[in-house]
C-alpha cells in the first residue's frame, strides 16, 4: 500500500468510527450488553435483568417521564393493586416493626427459604428509638399521629406499600405487593406499624 492510499484508508476508518452514534442505537446496544453479561447466581436468576414496561420507561427517561406516559403507567399500576378480601388493613404493629427492621431478602446471598424483610429502616425514619435509619425516603416518624388512622388513610398506606409506583411512577421505593416481596398479612402488619396509636412510630 502506498503512503497516500494508506492515509486515505486510515481517514476513512476514522470517519466511520467517528460517525455519531444515535441515542437509540446506544439504548439497544446497552440492552444487548446487559442481557449477555449477567448470569444466574443463587436465587438471583439472569432473567431479572429483563425489564417490565415501567422499569424500561424510567430507565429510558432517567426517571423524568413525559406527563402523559407517567399518568398512563401510574393508572396501570394502580389498577393492578389487590386490596385485602376481608376489607381489613390493620395487622400487628409488633410484627410490622420486625419486618421494618429486616433488610434481608432477594439478593444472591439470601437462601431460597429466607423470608424477605421490608427494608423500611434502610430508607425511612420510623420509630424514634431506632436511630440507625436511612434517608432515601421521607421520615415516617409520627405518621399516624399526623395523618390520623381512619379507613381512608389505612387504604392509602396499604396501597403505597403494595405499589409505590401507582402514585409516582419512578419513585425509588420497591413495589412490595406487586412484585410479591411481602404477603398481604405482612403488609397489614406494616400498616399497623405506621398507624396504630400504640406503635413506637406514634409514641
Amino acid at each position, binding site marked *: 500500500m502506498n503512503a497516500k492510499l494508506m492515509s486515505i484508508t486510515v481517514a476513512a476508518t476514522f470517519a466511520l*468510527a*467517528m460517525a455519531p*452514534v444515535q441515542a437509540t442505537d*446506544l*439504548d439497544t*446496544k*446497552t440492552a444487548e*450488553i*446487559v442481557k*449477555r*453479561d*449477567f*448470569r*444466574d*447466581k443463587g436465587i*438471583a*436468576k*439472569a*432473567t*431479572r*435483568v*429483563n*425489564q417490565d414496561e*415501567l*422499569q424500561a420507561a*424510567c*430507565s429510558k427517561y*432517567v*426517571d423524568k417521564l413525559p406527563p402523559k406516559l407517567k399518568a398512563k403507567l401510574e393508572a396501570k399500576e394502580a389498577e393492578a393493586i389487590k386490596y385485602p378480601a376481608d376489607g381489613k388493613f390493620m395487622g400487628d404493629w409488633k410484627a410490622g416493626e420486625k419486618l421494618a427492621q429486616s*433488610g434481608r431478602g*432477594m*439478593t*444472591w*446471598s439470601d437462601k431460597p427459604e429466607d423470608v424477605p424483610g421490608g427494608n423500611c*429502616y*434502610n*430508607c425511612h425514619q420510623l420509630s424514634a428509638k431506632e*436511630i*440507625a*435509619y*436511612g*434517608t*432515601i425516603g421521607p421520615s415516617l416518624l409520627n405518621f399516624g399521629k399526623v395523618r390520623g388512622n381512619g379507613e381512608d388513610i389505612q387504604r392509602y398506606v396499604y396501597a403505597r406499600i403494595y405499589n409505590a*409506583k401507582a402514585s409516582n411512577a419512578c419513585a*425509588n421505593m*420497591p*413495589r412490595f405487593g406487586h*412484585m410479591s*416481596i411481602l404477603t398481604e398479612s405482612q403488609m397489614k402488619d406494616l400498616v399497623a406499624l405506621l398507624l396504630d396509636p400504640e406503635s413506637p412510630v406514634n409514641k
Partner: protein
Amino acid sequence: MNTNQIHKAMMVLALSTSFAAVAADSAVTDSDRIEQYREMISDGNPAEFDEMRGEELWKKAAGPNKVSLEQCDLGKGAGVVKGAYSELPKYFKDTKKVQDLESRLLTCMTTLQGFTEDEITAKPFASSKKPSDISSLATYVVGQSKGIKMAVSTKHPKVKESYEIGKRIFNYRAGPYDFACSTCHATSGVRIRMQDLPNMRSSKKDAQIAYTGWPAYRVSQGLTRSFQWRLNDCFRQQRFPEPKFASEATIALTTFLAVNANGAEYVGPGLKR
C-alpha cells in the same frame, strides 16, 4: 510496611469485629468512624500487604509460559506501571476493546503467561481462605498512581461509547426491587441505615471521592477489595444477577465512573468500613 506498622494493622484487624458490632446502634455515621480509624493507622493501611504481594507476583515468572508480567502493557507501554491506573479504562488496539485495569491484567495473564481465562475468572475475588492474585496485582498497580490526577480520555470513539453505555447501565432499573445504581447513588446527602451514599450522577465531588478511594482494604471483611468487587457487591445489593467478571457491562460502568472522577488525585488503595 515495618514491624510497627504491621502491629498496627493487626490491631485494626482485631478491632474490625467490634467495629461491625457497634455500627448498628450509634448515631455516628460510618464515615465519621472510618475517619477515626484512618487517623489510628495513618502510617499504614493493611492494603499495603496486598500491594507487596502484587508487586512480587508482577515480577515473578509464572504460568505455563514461565514469564513475569513485566512486559504487560497497561496503556502507557510495555512494563510501565507508574501512572497507568489514572488513565484507565482505555482503548487497546491488540484486543480491540476498551479495558479497565482488571480486564487488562486478565489479558496479560492469558496472553503473556499462558493462563486460561476460566482459571482466573472462576474465583476472581479474595476470600478469607484464599487471596486472589489478580486482586493483589491490581492493588500493586493502583498504588503506583497514588498522587496522580485521574485523566481518562474520551477522545477515542470507543471510550466515548463505553461511557455512554455505562451511563445507561447506571440508570438501568430492573429486578424485584426496581433498583438501578441511581436508586442509591443519584441524590446528594442520603444514606442507607448509617452508610452515606455518594451521588455519582450529579455531584462531581462525590463521584471523585467514591472512585479514587478504591480498591480498598475493608475493615469489616479484613480483605483488600478491587473495583470489580465493588461493582459486584453493589449489583448484589441491587438484587441483580451476577455481572460476569471483567465483562463489557462492568467496564462500561467503570468508564462512566472513572471519567466522572477526572481531575481528582488518585488516593487509593483506600480504607473502608
